[in-house]
């Protein structure tokens, strides 16, 4: 993949805690436009925390270090400003919002982001057309547009719903937190194709996964191992194969 010298996401020596517990411990990572980075690592390593810290979840307190998106300090922004700046997090556990229809929610999200960019909002008809296309692309029945956000969706349906939001929001940086967990092989391909369809020279991805399987479909430029709050190893796609065979122990032992 072509990559310019520009950096889209720059995380430098980031440390963060949740409820007095240090979780990120000096994490650094650079993502250039158009790149796909996979992050793997043991449970509890801090992978989801990284997504929450970057997206501005309350209660996740940055202790030191920095994170910029397109050169702008992310950590000073409200959660919604980060989204409007082009950051998108597909949640490991998407939240159910009963009573708020998926379509209404996505329209409001897209409108809010367009407005922030000084663009006019889409007409209902225009948006509906886009939403239907996105819904089809992630292989969910159109009835899901009318349903409450994630309300009663299965695990796999929630993940596809996250992807649908991503398709509609057209972010600059997409962080996918275990979007492949709990998916059967067909659903996995749907997610992978969804991601691949969005790969452009400008858009970057951070893909958190436990499985090499997904990376067969989405070829990463880099693979990182996150353990105990920092990146302890980086490599190319072949690192994922190594991890698949050998697990993480050999890395964490060497580290200790």
């Amino acid at each position: 993949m072509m990559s310019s010298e520009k950096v889209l996401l720059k995380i430098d020596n980031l440390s963060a805690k949740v409820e007095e517990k240090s979780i990120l411990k000096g994490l650094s990572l650079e993502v250039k436009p158009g790149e796909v980075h996979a992050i793997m690592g043991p449970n509890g390593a801090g992978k989801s925390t990284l997504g929450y810290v970057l997206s501005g979840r309350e209660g996740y307190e940055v202790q030191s270090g920095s994170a910029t998106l397109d050169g702008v300090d992310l950590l000073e922004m409200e959660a919604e400003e980060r989204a409007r700046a082009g950051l998108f997090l597909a949640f490991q556990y998407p939240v159910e919002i009963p009573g708020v229809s998926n379509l209404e929610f996505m329209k409001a999200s897209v409108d809010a982001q367009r407005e922030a960019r000084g663009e006019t909002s889409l007409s209902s008809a225009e948006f509906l057309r886009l939403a239907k296309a996105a819904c089809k692309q992630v292989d969910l029945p159109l009835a899901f547009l009318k349903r409450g956000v994630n309300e009663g969706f299965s695990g796999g349906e929630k993940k596809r719903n996250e992807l649908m939001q991503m398709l509609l929001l057209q972010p600059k940086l997409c962080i996918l937190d275990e979007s492949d967990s709990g998916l059967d092989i067909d659903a996995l391909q749907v997610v992978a194709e969804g991601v691949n369809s969005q790969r452009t020279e400008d858009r970057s991805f951070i893909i958190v996964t436990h499985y090499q399987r997904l990376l067969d479909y989405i070829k990463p430029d880099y693979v990182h191992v996150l353990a105990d709050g920092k990146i302890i190893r980086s490599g190319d796609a072949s690192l994922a194969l190594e991890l698949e065979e050998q697990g993480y122990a050999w890395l964490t032992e060497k580290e200790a």
Partner: protein
Amino acid sequence: MSNWLESAVTRAETVSDWLSPKREASLALLREAKVPTRKTEAWKYTPVRAIDQVTVSTEVSASVQVESIDDLNSVDLVFINGEFDAAQSSSELPAGLTVSRLVDADDSARAWALSAFSNIKPDRHLFGLVNDVLATDGALIDVAEGVEIEQPIRIVSLLTQGAEAHTRVLVRLAERSKVAIVEQFLGNEASYNTGFAEYDVAAEAELEHYRFATQVNEALSIGGSHFNLGEKAQLNSTLIGFGSKLSRVDVDVTHAGSHAFAKMNVIYLLDGKELFDLHSTVEHAVPHGTTEENVRGIVADHAKVVFNGRIHIHRNAQKTLAELNNRNLLMSRTAEINTKPELEIYADDVRCAHGATIAELDKKALYYMQSRGLSRSQAQVMLNFGFINELVEQMPNQVLAEWLRPQLKARFAQMEVG
């Protein structure tokens, strides 16, 4: 005068009209009555002293334009400070519908009104008795057998600064008739009103009912809607309560005929220091009745809500299906929710459920929505609306639902998480 109750009794003694036989019975009860205190079960959380602290008069006249509801195409009956406003009321009525006023009812209207007046509304409602003896005007609505009235009937009671008014509505649905009735209460300045309505729904008749108890701020508003359901009668009622200095509604539904169906949806939204108190009682006196009561509300800031919902299933009311559900969203730790859903069951072959929940605003959902670019306040409005939207969607009249939505949203926009 020392208080509103004595004042009501004294003034009632001077009222004399065709309703007097009925009024006298209520007056006798009122003479024995005491001003409710904190020890009075039905008024435990709702002090009434505000009525003595406001200066009001039944002589305030005002000309105010009542906003119409676009596209509702309703038959309007407008009362300003208790006085009928002919100019703002509809003059033409659809066939099968007879409407008279309390003051100009003819003999046949009087005949059925006398049998209905104060017969459907239970005597235990103290302010109902006040209304019995003081109601000077109101509407008598009579729907003929087998007739379906397509136009909704909207009864507006608007109060202005310093006004006191007591209005009464009596509605009779003859067998197999169908009508929609909207009771709308307006006026947010210091005022005091009682507004009671009694509905006699005969066999196989269908009543769509709305009560918009949306007076806020200084208004003191007390009233009730009371229903008697005949065999296979259907009631679909939606009550919206906003709360004010004193806002109290009593609802009674009696399943008098078997196989009747009552659906009651209630939404209350309170902010500031508002108070809203709803007492509902459903009497299943006969077998095979169904009641579905869904009460949902959002309470913010220092507001206080009281919900007391009782379903009473009599010994021979076998095969009753009854559900009573109260869900609350607490927006601030300083808000107060007093909820007491009660089922009293004396029959053994029934299916009943009741419950109440109080939840706080879902912070995780707020963050999720913000992470998609919505501002916190936008997210909050959507979340709140989501909480009650299901009930708004169930309103049978979608024009009313459309009219209501922006008002609810405007109210959410004011509420802040505490």
